[in-house]
């Protein structure tokens, strides 16, 4: 049984790019984002964001993070606060935010992303 469209949580999709010397794997990206959100906002608040790494391209180091629409600002702030991945300095650059993956790809990930759904 599926949930009625009106009852589904509204989402926002955030396109981001990882700036780092080298490359990180999908699992590292997931861990880093969740760790930062939990560290800064606390477990209780971070659980409301509904953070989910929808897609990640390990070659281009670009990804799509989905979150609850109400907490879009907090999700972007969490990405902003990331300063390292493992022992390497890194930054997560937010490319744009959209209400649908299709629009997000059209507007911010134009050069034909090769992302795989997780």
């Amino acid at each position: 049984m599926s949930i009625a469209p009106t009852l589904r949580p509204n989402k926002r999709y955030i396109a981001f790019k990882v700036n780092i010397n080298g490359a990180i794997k999908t699992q590292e990206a997931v861990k880093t984002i969740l760790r930062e959100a939990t560290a800064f906002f606390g477990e209780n608040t971070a659980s409301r964001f509904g953070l989910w790494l929808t897609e990640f391209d390990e070659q281009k180091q670009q990804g799509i993070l989905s979150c609850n629409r109400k907490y879009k600002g907090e999700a972007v702030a969490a990405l902003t606060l990331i300063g390292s991945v493992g022992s390497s300095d890194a930054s997560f650059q937010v490319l744009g935010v959209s209400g649908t993956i299709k629009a997000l790809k059209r507007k911010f990930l134009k050069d034909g992303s090769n992302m795989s759904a997780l």
Partner: protein
Amino acid sequence: MQFLDLCVYSTDSDGRDSRAVLEAFAKVLSSDIRFCDGARASDGLEITFDKEKDLKKQLKPALYTVLEPHSEDAASASVKVKHAIIRTRLNPVLARVMAGSSCSIELSLAPLIGSSGVRRTRALGLIRTNLKYARKYGVPILATTGAKSSLGLRTPHQVYELLRVLGLTEDEAKSAMFETPNNIIQHGELAAGGKIISETVRLV
């Protein structure tokens, strides 16, 4: 949304990337940066000091001046430099004098980015205190990244969202990102061009 970052360090001071690299990366991020290395006429000058005497020794003409006083006496000396950007913990007395001498308080994101635990908690506490007094006494707030490499720079959108999370209103965040730094730069350019004769007289 525009972001003018007045506190970026290149290899001319204690930064890790060259000016060209930082400028190119800032362009990609759609933000505007100024260096506070003090190496060129277009730079800001950063002074860290303990006593008024040390401040006097280091002062020289620059587009803008970032002051980091390390004692209470030094903080009260720093407000004598009009239109300076001051990096300290505000108190009511200091905030009132700063507003009177058109000084701005710096809200640096560097201590928050990539840190955790006690360091970040202290940085957040400092931001909250400064925000409280800056609002009460009308001290302009200035947002900076304090980036020492290209990986420390952030997009205007990211800075805006972080400022909102830190408790700034929409208008305060936009003003801290562009209006306040732009006013500082404009004042610096007028002063450097000899168009400001005194605090109240300007050549048109």
